[in-house]
């Protein structure tokens, strides 16, 4: 369950953050870039408990999403969005898109414009330039951000607790249950070791793939 949510969050966050970082780096005029970046990371300034509760209000049965969909005639009665896996993923994605946007943006602005010009001069289309030049050069930033997202997401307790309810428990929630309610320290320790093993495997995969020894 934790792994499914984490992989979904990481994939969705990368897909949303890359175009956002691209637009900020290459489409927004340079004098506005700092302001736009600041606005992008503005939610970082609030506690993630507050952010999660805000999402709970937005996704509640009487929340703005349900009311808007009912107002538009797309729904006849409110649907349950809060306390679901969807709510957990939404809360996570909102946070991690900011993190990934910053790491990918930092990578994109370091790219010399001459790479793109050279590719275009050699007859590459915009898509080919992106596919064969820009994307490979920015992959270290993407993978670093994705790894950070993975590590922070799989170990997070608060967001699934607030937004996911107790319908499906993630590993950190299970650890807390063992510690808080059952005082079952051995099982909590085993779950924590499994969690650390997953994070270590993710690190080894990303380090091997990035060939950090070459940097």
């Amino acid at each position, binding site marked *: 369950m934790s792994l499914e949510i984490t992989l979904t969050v990481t994939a969705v966050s990368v897909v949303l953050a890359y175009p956002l970082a691209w637009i900020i780096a290459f489409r927004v005029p340079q004098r506005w870039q700092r302001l736009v970046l600041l606005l992008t990371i503005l939610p970082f300034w609030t506690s993630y408990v507050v952010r999660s509760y805000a999402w709970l209000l937005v996704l509640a049965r009487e929340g703005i999403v349900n009311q808007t969909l009912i107002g538009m005639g797309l729904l006849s009665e409110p649907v349950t969005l809060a306390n679901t896996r969807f709510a957990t993923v939404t809360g996570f994605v909102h946070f991690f898109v900011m993190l990934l946007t910053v790491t990918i943006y930092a990578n994109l602005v370091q790219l010399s414009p001459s790479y793109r010009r050279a590719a275009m001069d050699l007859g590459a289309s915009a898509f080919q330039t992106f596919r064969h030049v820009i994307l490979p050069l920015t992959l270290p930033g993407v993978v670093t951000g994705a790894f950070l997202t993975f590590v922070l997401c799989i170990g997070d307790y608060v967001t699934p607790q607030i937004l996911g309810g107790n319908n*499906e*428990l993630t590993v950190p929630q*299970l650890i807390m*249950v063992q510690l808080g309610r059952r*005082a*079952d320290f*051995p099982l909590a*320790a085993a*779950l924590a070791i499994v969690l650390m093993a997953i994070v270590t495997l993710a690190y080894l995969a990303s380090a091997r793939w990035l060939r950090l020894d070459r940097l």
Partner: protein
Amino acid sequence: MTILRGDKRGWGFIAPALLWTLAFFVVPFLVMGAMSFATLEGRTLVWGLSLDNYAEPGKSGSCGGRSSCRLRSR
């Protein structure tokens, strides 16, 4: 002699970080690792080499639902 002095200085620089990591990561991690092989008998912790705790999350399908690993009774 110079190299040795340089080595000592290097160790001196990283010693606080090493001690910090040892005290707050390595030792707690080893204790946690050892505890993961222990079992509970009632409320008493019995140190040993049991793999029951690692098998527990796999029982009754996913550990995410209201499964045995959440609700098991001792």
